[in-house]
């Protein structure tokens, strides 16, 4: 008995000219963890949504889906709800009720279960997922990771045979992401639930997958064990999108190894392989020890002095923050969940209460940052918060003054072209995909020609292909003398592209240094690549840096 069987599945969205999924044939074992990977637009999400009728979008479908050898379409509604669980990527949208316990009860209430049964199940589930402390809490007060855990727990209340997860860790910080993946692993081991999951962040999940399905352009390119898939992946994908998203161990192997066999599947295997292959590198002079960008004689654009700030109920989130940004610098502010990274940005925008401290902008002391054209601009975490108009074109045009002069109109057209939004110009901003929305948000910010760009967690949920594009736009900005302050969890992104990094902890900046130096000493705050190569090349944080070193 197979867990999930897909036969000759072709799916075309309504009003689309070509099918998004083309003749898919897959067989997933019962109790297996199947990981679907692929570039943005390859059809991953569409495929997962075909496995449950209530998730399938409008469109034409041919072919069949079988869950435990039963035609999925033939399932009764109640059975479907109880047999197939789903967890999405946005923790905000998945919460329906106001308390954790009622969220856990939601599915069973819908199925008409009696109070006693619900009570028993919720007690078990809360215990299993470690939600006892959060049981009575309001859902609004939970962190993103906690919300996703509650979502998962709620889906598990019916003990489903199949769990579908669409990028569940996309919006989470690295720690919560790891926690969630571990819980999934436990569920799979202890209940034998068949899990089908799509993910962008592959390091943790790749190791535990039983089956990896590589998708491209709506077709299954490769489906097999992680070993098979790695072999295929290390040979393929010279297009940036998929390659950039591969787990670090595969990426490194692709670049560094001449072999195509024996690709490491886990970080541990990667480390062992690297030490074996390149252990002789130690002792050779390696200029990876350089401290990074030259920070002499640059003009200061922003200085934060002794900042203490917070909110009404938490007045001292920040206790004593000192930070300096020079012209043309890209600074990444790292720190754990709740450390106060966003609070710094909020303090600059006067949305948090500043108890002490001074801001100096371009040398002048200011109460709050001057915002807008040619000054500082803030890019929020959720691009949807920025959109006020009904079409993409109007969004861009709204940035110019009321009466659009002919020059402004041309400039707007150019902006649309530059950010590859021209083909969407008549669409409503909400109809864009995640990456397209981010591009539009970026376009809006950059048209104002900011001298200082403040970005809040931009890479959350960003697909790897767009990350590269995003980085190059930032680089362009930097090179034209503009400065960037980015708040992020994304250690990998910072290690690759930032000039300097700062670590926020206990209300202070615990470490502030050039990129290389920042990561050089760290025990825990390091990139996946570094954790593999640090015995040989302690100062290398990215695949590119490693390649540079071993070329010597």
């Amino acid at each position, binding site marked *: 008995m197979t867990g999930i069987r897909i036969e000759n599945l072709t799916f075309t969205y309504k009003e689309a000219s070509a099918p998004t999924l083309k003749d898919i044939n897959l067989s997933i074992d019962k109790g297996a963890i199947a990981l679907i990977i692929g570039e943005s637009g390859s059809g991953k999400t569409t495929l997962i949504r075909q496995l*449950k009728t*209530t*998730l399938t979008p409008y469109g034409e479908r041919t072919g069949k889906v079988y869950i435990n050898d039963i035609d999925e379409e033939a399932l009764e*509604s*109640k059975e479907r*709800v*109880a047999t197939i669980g*789903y967890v*999405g990527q*946005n923790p*905000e*949208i*998945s919460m*329906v*009720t*106001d*308390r954790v*316990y*009622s969220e856990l*009860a939601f*599915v*069973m*209430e*819908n*199925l*008409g*279960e*009696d*109070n006693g049964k*619900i*009570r028993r199940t*919720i007690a078990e589930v809360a215990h299993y997922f470690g939600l006892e402390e959060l049981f009575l809490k*309001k*859902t*609004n007060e939970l962190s993103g990771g906690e919300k996703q855990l509650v979502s998962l727990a*709620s889906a598990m209340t019916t003990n489903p045979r199949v769990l579908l997860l669409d990028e569940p860790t996309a919006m989470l910080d690295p720690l919560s992401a790891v926690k969630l993946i571990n819980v999934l692993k436990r569920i799979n081991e202890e209940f034998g639930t068949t899990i089908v999951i799509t993910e962008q962040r592959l390091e943790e999940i790749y190791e535990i997958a039983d089956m990896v399905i590589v998708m491209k352009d709506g077709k299954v390119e490769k489906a097999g064990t992680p070993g098979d898939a790695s072999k295929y992946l290390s040979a393929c994908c010279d297009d940036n999108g998929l390659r950039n998203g591969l787990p670090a161990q595969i990426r490194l192997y692709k670049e560094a190894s001449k072999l195509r066999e024996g690709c490491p599947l886990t970080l541990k295997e990667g480390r062992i392989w690297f030490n074996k292959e390149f252990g002789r590198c130690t002792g050779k002079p390696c200029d990876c020890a350089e401290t990074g960008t030259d920070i002499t004689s640059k003009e200061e654009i922003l200085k934060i002095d002794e900042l203490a700030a917070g909110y009404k109920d938490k007045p001292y989130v920040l206790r004593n923050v000192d930070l300096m940004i020079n012209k043309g610098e890209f600074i990444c502010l790292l720190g754990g969940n709740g450390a106060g990274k966003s609070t710094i940005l*909020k303090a600059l*925008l006067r*949305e948090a209460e500043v108890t002490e401290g001074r801001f100096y902008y371009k040398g002048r002391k200011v109460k709050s940052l001057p*915002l*807008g*054209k040619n*000054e500082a*601009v*803030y*890019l*929020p*975490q*959720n691009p*949807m*918060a*920025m*959109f*006020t108009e009904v079409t993409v074109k109007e969004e861009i045009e709204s*940035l110019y003054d009321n009466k659009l002069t002919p020059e402004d109109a041309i400039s707007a057209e150019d902006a649309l072209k530059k950010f590859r939004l021209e083909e969407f110009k008549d669409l409503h901003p*909400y109809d864009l995909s995640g990456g397209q929305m981010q591009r539009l948000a970026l376009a*809006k*910010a950059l048209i*104002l020609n900011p001298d200082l760009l*403040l970005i809040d967690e931009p890479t959350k949920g960003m697909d790897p292909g767009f990350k590269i594009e995003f980085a190059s736009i930032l680089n362009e900005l930097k090179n034209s003398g503009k400065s960037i302050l980015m708040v992020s969890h994304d250690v990998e992104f910072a290690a690759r592209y930032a000039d300097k990094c700062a670590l926020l902890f206990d209300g202070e900046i615990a470490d502030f240094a050039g990129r290389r130096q920042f990561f050089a000493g760290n025990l825990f705050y390091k990139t996946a690549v570094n954790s593999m190569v640090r015995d040989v090349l302690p100062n290398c944080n990215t695949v590119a840096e490693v390649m540079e070193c071993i070329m010597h």
Partner: protein
Amino acid sequence: MNRLRKLHPLPTIIYFIILLGIQMWTFNSYILAAGYIAASVCMIYMAGFADYLGKLPLDALIVVLCAGINLLAYHDGEHILFYLNGNRVTFEAINFGIHMGIYIVTVIKWCLLYGRIMTEDEFIYLFGRFAPTVALMLSQVFRTIPYLREDYKNIRMASSGLGKSGVRSHMEDISTLISKSLEESIYRGELMEDRGYGVGKRTNYHRFRFKRRDMAAIIIEMTIGVLLFAEVASGRMTIFFYPLCGFRAEKAELITVAAVFFIYGLLPTLLKKDEVR
């Protein structure tokens, strides 16, 4: 003294229905006085003396305003105090105004007390018994309001972050908030449907079990309630203001009824404070 733990929502809501029912149905000085003092004692017990003092100026203002409006609008009454712009200012008019002010203040205090004792999920539960859909809707409302508040702040930051300011940008932000939340509700609805909403008749999970003492509480409340309502319904608690202030019943009866109401109003002080907000 060993205080009681909170009751089941049903006796709690019955308590407040009777309390507010009596308080709002009478305008009697004795019952008003009893109500005001009992409400104040309860609020001091729940929120502290500093909180009570903090509210006192506003309460006084309300009383003064009501007295003031009334003396300007009504000129009946036996005891004329002075003339204002050719109009009579009488003691009875001021008296009525003061009564009105204290009435408003007392009812507000009872409502605040209610807010402290009854939580949202208890309130939802009461609906869940016979209208699970309404219960769910209430739960969603209670979730959505803080969420929208937070989201508005983010939208505000996004627009001020682009340099926008002024009334127009605030209006735009509200519009963005509405559009965004409508958009999200489409997805949320889809997810709800996926999780089985609408598949059949819904039940409503609740954490509240009826205990014997809840039944006892209801019996006590209803007994006192019936007695008080009987007194009020009979019309014996009526108060006259014009042309002279007077009551229909004897002083002894008025004091007894007010005393019973006072004790009834003090019952919340029997609750343990740790479960109350």
